[in-house]
């Protein structure tokens, strides 16, 4: 048997052995979702480079190792080590997860406005499963890819957020996922439902405090009801040898507005998907992204925006900075379905290569099946501008510092789209090439 089949069987067995311990095991509706997802996984298996969506990303390194599903809470994380990652200066409501488990001792969510539910998924499945039943997995098609199916089958923990109608949540909500354990695999699942006429800001952050390999396979679903306004910032700072596969799945309804920002700094093999469906008229979304990779990092971003009804707007701005032998993939698809007239879509991907060995595969795609639409897309790949470098150096600025200045300038266009200045300052600090 080859590695691919060994790995597949490993997860099928893991599911059989651990399913009785998974949260919500006694809920028939959840069990059938999990079974269905596992069935898809066992039929389909892991993607290969023959799959169009995985052409430039080889996931075999993920299969060469048997990652261990967490069975008990065992972390020894000090408050001191965690502290630098808490967005305390932004008065954030914070849920902390460590090595697959919810950490009430580190979480700070006692100042929530009324009408806001912010809980860990397993608690909600135990206490009020009815609240979550109609939403969990509603935005995600588990048949999308094997990792999403695996997440649905094996999800253990994550955030459940529900914002009541007409509630404005001023301070951001931070979901912080910390990894300290080597060889572990975690299936975090976040489910976020934002009712009509609301506004909420979310920061989903993955931090690796472990140099040895581990694997995070996460899914976040967001349902944006009419007139909902959502900011979502994902910050990926996994450990240098870790694996990260994450999917953000968004369903938007009439007049809703969703701005997503994806910052990818860490990990050795990273795949990040953002899929947005504009399911009703006059909904709009913005997808911002910045990936920064060096050494042998491989970072793959796939985005898909589906315009289903008329008068939708989508904008996408992704930038990449690649050094050493790093590789990145950008694949952005905008789909304008029949009937989605008056759609406006723009998409751009710009890349800065800082070494001869760095590589980018970029593919912006428009698929238009409606008339009367306004769509534009483009991609660029370039190096640091020699003239700018000479200009800075002629003012006494050392070559390395001048490069840093230009790299930060390139990144700032994306960073400055984040609306909170304290978060921008943090992102500037995380940006080391």
């Amino acid at each position, binding site marked *: 048997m080859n590695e691919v089949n060994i790995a597949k069987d490993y997860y099928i067995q893991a599911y059989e052995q651990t399913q009785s311990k998974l949260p919500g095991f006694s809920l028939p509706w959840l069990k059938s979702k999990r079974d269905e997802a596992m069935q898809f996984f066992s039929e389909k298996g892991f993607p290969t480079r023959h799959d169009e969506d995985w052409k430039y990303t080889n996931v075999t390194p993920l299969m060469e190792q048997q990652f261990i599903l967490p069975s008990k809470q065992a972390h020894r994380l000090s408050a001191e080590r965690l502290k630098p990652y808490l967005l305390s200066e932004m008065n954030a409501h914070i849920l902390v997860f460590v090595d697959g488990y919810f950490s009430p001792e580190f979480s700070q969510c006692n100042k929530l406005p009324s009408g806001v539910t912010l809980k860990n998924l397993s608690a909600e499945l135990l206490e009020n499963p009815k609240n979550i039943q109609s939403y969990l997995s509603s935005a995600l098609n588990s048949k999308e890819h094997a990792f999403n199916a695996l997440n649905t089958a094996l999800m253990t923990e994550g955030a459940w957020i529900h914002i009541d109608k007409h509630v404005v949540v001023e301070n951001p909500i931070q979901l912080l996922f910390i990894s300290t354990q080597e060889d572990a695999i975690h299936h975090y699942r976040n489910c976020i439902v934002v009712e009509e006429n609301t506004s909420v800001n979310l920061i989903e952050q993955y931090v690796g405090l472990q140099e040895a390999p581990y694997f995070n396979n996460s899914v976040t679903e967001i349902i944006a009801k009419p007139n909902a306004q959502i900011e979502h910032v994902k910050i990926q700072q996994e450990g240098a040898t870790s694996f990260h596969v994450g999917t953000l799945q968004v369903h938007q309804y009439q007049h809703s507005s969703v701005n997503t920002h994806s910052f990818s700094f860490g990990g050795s093999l990273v795949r990040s998907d953002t899929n947005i469906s504009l399911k009703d008229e006059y909904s709009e979304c913005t997808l911002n992204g910045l990936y920064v990779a060096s050494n042998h990092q491989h970072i793959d971003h796939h985005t898909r925006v589906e315009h289903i009804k008329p008068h939708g707007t989508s904008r996408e701005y992704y930038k990449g900075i690649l050094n050493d032998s790093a590789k990145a993939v950008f694949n952005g698809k905008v789909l304008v379905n029949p009937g989605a007239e008056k759609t406006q879509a723009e998409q751009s991907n710009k890349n800065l290569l800082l070494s001869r060995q760095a590589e980018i595969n970029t593919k912006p795609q428009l698929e238009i099946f409606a008339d009367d639409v306004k769509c534009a897309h483009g991609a660029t790949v370039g190096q640091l501008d020699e003239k700018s470098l*000479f200009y*800075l150096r002629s003012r*006494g600025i050392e070559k390395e510092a001048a490069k840093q200045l230009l790299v930060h300038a390139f990144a700032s266009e994306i960073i400055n789209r984040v609306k909170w200045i304290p978060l921008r300052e943090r992102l500037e600090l995380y940006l080391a090439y």
Partner: protein
Amino acid sequence: MSILVIENLHVEVDGKKILNGISLTVNAGEVHAIMGPNGSGKSTLANVLAGREDYQITSGKIFYQGNDLLDLSTEQRAQAGIFLAFQYPVEIPGVSNVNFLKAAVNAVRKGQGKPSLDAIDFLTFVREQLKLVHMDEDFLYRAVNEGFSGGEKKRNEILQMAVLEPKLAILDETDSGLDIDALKTVSEGVNALRHPERAMIVVTHYQRLLDHIVPDFVHVLSDGKIVHSGDKKLALELETKGYGWLEEAN
């Protein structure tokens, strides 16, 4: 001691000979104008002094304050007090003018073994220099040269010169693209920076700049060589007779 001594300098760009044996000595307090027709090598000379790397020096020597200038990198030259005001200042989106100026000032100070200026000291200092070129403070918070008019770009060059306090300032076609009012403002800024311990090399195609920045010496460059040197009267003579006069005489 001379600030700058150039001895028989030969320079090529992409295998093409641009400078063919330039010799020039510049002392503290002096302003030298370098004039010449397009393609005579004026801008090449300015860029070679600032350390542009794509120019090959095939022979000759340059001494700056008695030391071999060619041993120094671009940034080391700036730290040692050489300043080039660019003919075409570069736009750098995403970097604010104030951060750029602060990074430059502190890099030069570091190179000279001086302590960095903190944000407040720097701002106090730069505000004072802004007046010299009649610039508002909001100038500091725009991206470096991005969307600047021709005049604003050149004033920004003079502002940089003012904050970096060079020993040798080279002004490359500072008058190009300026209307008469902007030319006056820029020239006033330059004149205010004339100093007994500072030398300047003013590279220009036209005499009109030299009505405002009056040089001590004028050199005419043709085909990569200095074909004539004189005082400010030489510039006036060129204005009436044209460059052809000297090339023929040669």
